[in-house]
């Protein structure tokens, strides 16, 4: 980072993994007596959890180190994110899991579904039954019912409560947060971009479990700094650097090797179309509907995760992002053994190629370093074709 540019978040965690900052924030909340609920997924209704005075903590782990322990129980041929998360739990080394008073999961993919069965006895756990066909007439009503059931579970487990008014207030608060995050995303849409993926991650990782009120000062400062950068003609990378949009599975921790490779190969990441990036902030919940839980259900079912079928929204969202961020290439990052994203990648590639005429690359990888050179070769070849 250039000396003339101040980090968007300038604290003792700057430059390190974004999860450290998130942990510190959670530990502070714990100190104030707040209850913490571990979540695994972008479908967990943050608004409800916050409205009940509970802090959500993301339990998805991206470390290769705990996978060996996980593989003594789980098959090796399984998503590294699932193995890593499970490995942390059975070695009792996950600080987020350790902090959590309860765990919320969803029936997203098969791997997660069956892994949850192995941990339900360890802490109070609630698995939400997520609809697989969001366009079904009853899907919204069904998911709304599930959100209410989650509410009951949290009431029973924590003695916490939230009125519908409180949920409505949380909706507005999170909408505000998301709107500010989208303002941040305007900046990598510019050419040249004034911000790199690491700083985006600093914000996306922190914002996920935080309220709008908490994020407001942080985002306001970040936005001000971003404006300054732009106005001062700062470029994170030269304007003619090939612009890359990454899509697919959540990417963090040891999987960030792919992002580093992209930059080392001379590219710059301008859009992060995954739950670890932009996705949680792209949709708003309808306000003032009189039925805030139903409004939440409707909003959450719009998330274009590959566990949904037929997930047409993935392509429409992708088009929207491509038109806004104008990448020169699209890279679909699929975690090993993830059938949903892997199968869907075929139609994503077709769409990106045929409809947008952009070079496309699917990368199937894990958290180890064994395939770094192979990934590098592919990414270099892709950027050469830009």
């Amino acid at each position: 980072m250039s000396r003339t540019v101040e980090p968007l978040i300038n604290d003792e965690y700057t430059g390190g993994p974004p999860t450290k900052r998130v942990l510190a924030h959670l530990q502070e909340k714990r100190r104030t007596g707040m209850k913490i609920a571990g979540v695994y997924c972008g479908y967990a209704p943050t608004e409800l959890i916050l409205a009940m005075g509970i802090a959500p903590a993301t339990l998805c782990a991206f470390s290769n180190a705990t996978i060996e322990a996980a593989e003594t129980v789980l098959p090796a041929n399984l998503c590294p994110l699932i193995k890593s998360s499970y490995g942390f739990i059975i070695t009792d080394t996950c600080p987020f899991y350790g902090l959590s008073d309860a765990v919320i999961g969803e029936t997203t993919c098969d791997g997660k579904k069956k892994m949850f069965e192995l941990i339900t006895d360890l802490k109070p756990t609630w698995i939400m039954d997520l609809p697989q066909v969001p366009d079904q007439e009853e899907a919204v009503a069904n998911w709304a019912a599930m959100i209410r059931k989650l509410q009951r579970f949290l009431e029973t487990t924590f003695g916490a409560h939230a009125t519908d008014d409180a949920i409505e207030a949380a909706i507005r608060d999170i909408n505000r947060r998301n709107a500010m995050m989208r303002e941040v995303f305007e900046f990598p849409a510019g050419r040249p971009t004034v911000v790199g993926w690491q700083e985006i991650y600093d914000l996306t990782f922190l914002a996920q479990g935080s309220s709008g009120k908490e994020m407001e000062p942080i985002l306001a400062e970040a936005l001000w700094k971003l404006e300054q950068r732009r106005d001062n003609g700062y470029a994170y990378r030269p304007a003619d650097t090939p612009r890359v949009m990454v899509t697919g599975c959540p990417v963090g921790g040891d999987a960030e090797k792919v992002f580093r490779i992209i930059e080392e190969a001379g590219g710059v990441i301008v859009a992060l179309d995954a739950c670890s990036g932009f996705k949680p902030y792209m949709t708003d919940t309808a306000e003032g509907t009189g039925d805030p839980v139903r409004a939440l259900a409707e909003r959450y079912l719009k998330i274009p995760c590959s566990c949904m079928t037929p997930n047409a929204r993935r392509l429409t969202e992708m088009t929207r992002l491509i038109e806004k961020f104008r990448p020169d290439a699209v890279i679909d990052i699929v975690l090993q053994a993830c059938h949903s994203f892997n199968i869907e990648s075929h139609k994503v590639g077709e769409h990106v190629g045929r409809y947008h005429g952009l070079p496309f690359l699917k990368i199937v990888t894990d958290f180890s370093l064994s395939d770094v050179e192979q990934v590098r070769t592919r990414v270099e070849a892709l950027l050469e074709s830009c």
Partner: protein
Amino acid sequence: MRAGGLDIGSRTVKFVVIEDGRTVLARKALTSHDPLEAARTLIAGIQYDVIVATGYGRHLLKEHLDCPVISEIKAFALGAKAIHAPCRVILDIGGQDTKAICLNESGEMAKFEMNDKCAAGTGRFLEIMANALNYTLEEFPKAALSAEHAEKINSMCTVFAESEVISLTARGASRSDVALGIHKAIVSRSTALLKRIAPSGEVFFAGGVALNECIRALIAEDLNRPVVVPPDPQGVGAFGAALHAQKVGAATGGNNETVLR
């Protein structure tokens, strides 16, 4: 009664003859491209009353000799238990596969786990890497043990690991450091297999790769559990097959021709 056990592995053939429970003959040869011929040559002229075959090539031999066969898992279980009575957990790293076997209180085979789909982490892996680093199989562990630190090998696949080794040495990494890295890679794969079925307890370590002193040291270090290595780790399977032959022979009066499955 002389009972013979023949273990036809993918790399070596081992033949053991026991009499009254004691080994009176033990030999081995390279399997080469013709396991049947290698086996025939190995047992030619040796007197035995009953013979049992095990290993990768057991069914091939069965057609020729019409002898009973047992799986190499059972053979190893029998052999290990006879050699080391308290034995409950066996790790066998062979020429082309790795096995972990758990015995129950009565010494019978209870659980097992095998890796026989991938040569990485087996004797073959050691051979290829020794060659790539220009060591003989005898020099290889010595070099590894002399290293100050290990070069981490990231590739899972034998073929790619070979490329990785070459590029490491081309970049100036010390041969012995790379040698140690290779040995560590084998050990971590084998112990991962073992831990899936036996998270604790003393380990009986056998198979051809147990002849490698660096592997022996690293296994003990990695597992942090007692590790027992028999005097002839490579012959445990053949010995176990011979023990089974002894049992079969005792039941049928020792006539090879009347022995059925």
